[in-house]
């Protein structure tokens, strides 16, 4: 009897703040005859922009008219609801190589209750 397939352990790339690590891409650019080629090229393009190895796999999610690409399925566009910055964007977004592409750079993680600069 063949053994039950076991899912591969996935090591997710931990994004660093200050470096591009996410993209919002208009879904319309994938409406082509051969979307696989476009998708593969998009992955290679993003790996280059993010400074990762060619062939790095990215997750994508459907976000309305956009696809949200990032290395980990746990990435979120905004800070989570239980974060002190809940509701605010986690990324700074800049124009990409095409008008349909926005490249996201993770904002520096704020230090909770950081009082180090409080005058005493």
């Amino acid at each position, binding site marked *: 009897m063949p053994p039950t*397939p*076991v*899912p591969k352990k996935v090591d997710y790339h931990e994004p660093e703040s200050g470096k591009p690590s996410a993209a919002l891409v208009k879904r319309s650019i994938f409406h082509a005859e051969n979307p*696989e080629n476009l998708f593969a090229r998009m992955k290679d393009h993003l790996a280059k922009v993010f400074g990762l190895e060619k062939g790095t796999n*990215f*997750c*994508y*999610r*459907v976000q309305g008219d956009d696809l949200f690409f990032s290395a980990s399925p746990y990435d979120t*566009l905004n800070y989570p609801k239980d974060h002190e910055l809940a509701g605010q964007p986690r990324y700074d977004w800049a124009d990409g190589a095409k008008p349909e592409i926005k490249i996201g750079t993770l904002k520096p993680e704020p230090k909770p209750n950081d009082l180090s600069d409080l005058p005493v």
Partner: protein
Amino acid sequence: MPATRLWTNPQAAGYTPAGGALLPIGRITNATIDANGQRLTFSGDGDRYDTLNVNIGNAPAITLTGGDFFKFLGLMNGGFGTLVITYEDAKNVLGTGSAVVTLINAAPDSPSGGAAHRQVGSGTITFVSSSADGITNPLSFTLAA
């Protein structure tokens, strides 16, 4: 060989409860993804058709059907975790075109199952999900190049 854009054999399903270890789920016969769009409609006066029909939200879910229904029943814990499923490409199997589907904040809900006389038993379980920030889709995909 290029991807076929046809998928078969959902396999390598696994559920990792938050803070727990990966639990492989085998003997899967079907895995269905549902975006569960929620719509609001309105019509009034003498309208024959809706004059408003908008999507106001989604509740993505994945339903697994399989033979090992006692494993499904064992997931009735009210917790949440991460569900991963792999669909084979119809020709390339786990190569080019195979798809990995991940549902985060996935909560097992309402498992059911049983067996009948002279039939192999079967069960189903649905994993519902939530979003950490309220706007990011908890359902994500990865395609093998």
